[in-house]
């Protein structure tokens, strides 16, 4: 009888199956925070902690979107272009230095919806034309950059809208509004992942898409929905960047495509799909942000910072993947 009797407590819920791999990134984060705290008195101040959270906010929001696409087993390279388009659209729709429009919140909403629409296009291309997401999202990114360049039209639109500007400057309980937005996004994304059909099916598609299809589920619509949702997160991220920069820039999202994928993977949301999740990815975001912040504070030359950060990321991923290795494994 032994193997079939389950004596473990019934209320263990989803926590069962938490492995070394899941625990690895949080432990790495703690260790790095500890080391940096020992090395730098400036690092271990409350003010710096708030700075780190503020600096992580945009990446956290963007990574929420990327995470769902990675859970599918797809990849999304469209963040840069989608964010560029949204950034310019929001900058010319709210009160700005270029035209007389002052749509306020509606302008922000339009920018986010535009981003979601671009995400939807990626999803439709993947599902209907069966083009790999790597190519479709790269193409959509280029389209987004094109839209952004058209709207930019040679003159940089400065954001005047006081409420949008206050996103980056206003504080509530010590945290900037951007930080609060990021916290809400992460919680919302986590809720979607944990408590909605969309989130759970995204997991299942990454885990075993054929099984889902064999159970009579049409997976296409869920894939499109995931790409659309990811686009919305990029759009919101772009609005946040625009608030920080005070103007709409074509290149406002340029660094976020790979930063968000890196953060997700470092946190344990693997590229194979179905592994990790929003909270994992958020740990990855914090890990990257803490590293960037800490390396500056302990006085690592800016010339080697990039290299050191890359090295730490590669080591972290190699350690996390170690238990999965086997002989003759094919890695691409």
């Amino acid at each position: 009888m032994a193997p079939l009797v389950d004596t473990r407590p019934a209320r263990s819920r989803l926590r069962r199956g938490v492995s070394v791999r899941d625990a690895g990134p949080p432990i790495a984060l703690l260790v790095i925070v500890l080391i940096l705290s020992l090395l730098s008195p400036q690092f271990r101040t409350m003010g710096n902690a708030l700075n780190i959270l503020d600096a992580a906010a945009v990446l956290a929001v963007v990574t929420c979107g990327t995470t769902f696409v990675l859970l599918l087993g797809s990849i999304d390279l469209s963040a840069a272009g989608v964010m560029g388009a949204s950034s310019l659209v929001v900058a010319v729709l709210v009160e700005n230095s270029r035209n007389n429009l002052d749509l306020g919140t509606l302008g922000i909403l339009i920018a986010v919806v535009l981003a979601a629409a671009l995400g939807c296009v990626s999803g439709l291309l993947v599902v209907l034309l069966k083009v790999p997401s790597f190519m479709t999202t790269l193409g959509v990114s280029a389209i987004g950059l094109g839209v952004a360049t058209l709207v930019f039209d040679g003159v940089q639109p400065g954001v005047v809208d006081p409420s949008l500007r206050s996103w980056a400057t206003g504080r509530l309980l010590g945290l900037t509004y951007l930080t609060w937005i990021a916290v809400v996004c992460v919680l919302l994304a986590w809720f979607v992942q944990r408590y909605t059909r969309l989130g759970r099916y995204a997991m299942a598609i990454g885990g075993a898409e054929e099984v889902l299809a064999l159970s009579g589920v049409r997976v296409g619509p869920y894939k499109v929905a995931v790409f659309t949702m990811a686009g919305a997160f990029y759009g919101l991220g772009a609005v946040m960047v625009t608030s920080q920069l005070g103007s709409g820039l074509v290149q406002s999202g340029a660094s976020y495509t790979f930063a968000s994928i890196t953060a997700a993977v470092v946190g344990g949301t693997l590229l194979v799909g179905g592994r990790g999740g929003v909270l994992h990815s958020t740990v990855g975001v914090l890990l990257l942000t803490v590293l960037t912040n800490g390396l500056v504070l302990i006085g690592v030359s800016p010339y080697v910072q990039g290299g050191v950060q890359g090295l730490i990321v590669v080591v972290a991923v190699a350690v996390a993947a170690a238990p999965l290795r086997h002989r003759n494994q094919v890695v691409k």
Partner: protein
Amino acid sequence: MSAEGVIAQRSPSVVLEVRGLVKAYPGVKALNGVDLEVRQNEVLGLAGENGAGKSTLLKTLVGLVRPDAGEIYVRGQRVRLRNVVDAANHGIGMVFQEQSLVPNLTAAENIVLGCEGPAIRRGFYRWATMRALAQEQLDKIGSTIDPLARTDSLTFAERQMVEIAKVLRIEQRTHNSPVIILDEPTSVLEPSEIETLFEQVRRLREFASVIFVSHRLDEVLDVCDRVYVLRGGQSVGEVRPADAVAGELHRMMIGSESHEDHYHGSAVTRDETPRERLTVRGLAGATFRDVDLDVRAGEIVAVVGVHGSGREELCKALFGAVATTAGEVTLDGERLDLTGPRAACAAGVGYVPAERKVEGMVGPMSVADNMTLAKQRVRCAGPVIVPKRQSDIVDKWISRLSIRTPGRRTAIQRLSGGNQQKVILARWLVGGDVRLLLLDHPTRGLDVGARSEVYRLMRELAGTGVATLLLADSLEEAIGMADRVVVMSDGRIVAEVPCPPDRKPSPLDLVKEMV
């Protein structure tokens, strides 16, 4: 439809009937007019060798394969099953051999997947409801698995229970007692787990009909009320375990005709005193242990065993492709390095994998590229490919093995299966240094003509002194080709049967050792 009336009169308790089912694939007739009848609350066994048509039949019953001809009736109603959901709506569900659960979801989600009902409202999960729904299914089979455990944290046996619970959900759709198909459910279970599964099957019989498929005859006889025997895509008989013995069943499975003569014409004369070439002592790995084995130069040794006997892994281990934990292997007296395929290649070991299209060849690459894949030096000067050397050696082997291809530049995927297999064999011959060939189902999926060419080739190679370890597709093939047959069961070698050309054992002699 007068036929329906007839069925209804003849035996009212028949829940599923199959008549004259035919399914042909290029080169083979997988089903050749199968008739089958499943009655209410019975456990029906399906027995048959590899290739007898069992899995095609099962796939037809759950709508994964569409038959070319023949009819399926559920409770007297003619049905057409287009997909798994269709089958489920008619009350037919299958527990797949290679498990079909989403590993990163909870057991509960898997059980209700695609048919969540009240567990998801407007796209939002209601975990408590889902848990209760799943618990209801698990209770039916008396399982105590936590419904909220992640599926990949469960053991294989536990996952099987989850699959059974999932299949039982089809009761909700039909409000009739379902037909549950168990495809080789015992192949990877421990003996104690098998006993639990059998209890489960007997419990299922209370409210469902079960089709139980297994390689192992003793199991079929143990748990089934009736057994159908399939051979060559036809049902060749029906047996009641009460009055049957395993031997009788086997005679039906294998058929009366003995191993055919055309491929074991072992006319090749060998050295009077053949040298030991491969010696294996105490080899152990994840699925086999204590393996002692000798193969002499020019000898063909076949390893037979049921699915899960560990013979495939043994074969891969000798090539260094799966890890070993203990043991010593020598080739011509020298220790063979088992740390990886590279070392094995260098030592003159060749391996023809069972999955030709996945592991055996690079489909879009040319015949020449595939043939020289393992021994690049035959076509290169240093790191550079010399076209003249390549064309000389490749053309030589194309003609020596009479490989039918438009040319050496043709992509290998455009060749027929038999010719592909010859190219893969040639890969080990071009170097001129092959001493041991490991052939994992070398004739799988080949038609009769291609098979006999591969057999002839194997004979020729043996004649030149190559030692061959063969995992045969069928017992007849093993007996026909081999000089010696080794029987594996549960990871160990349990018997060794000499197999000289003049005194071939019968398949039954081997089967006795296998079960």
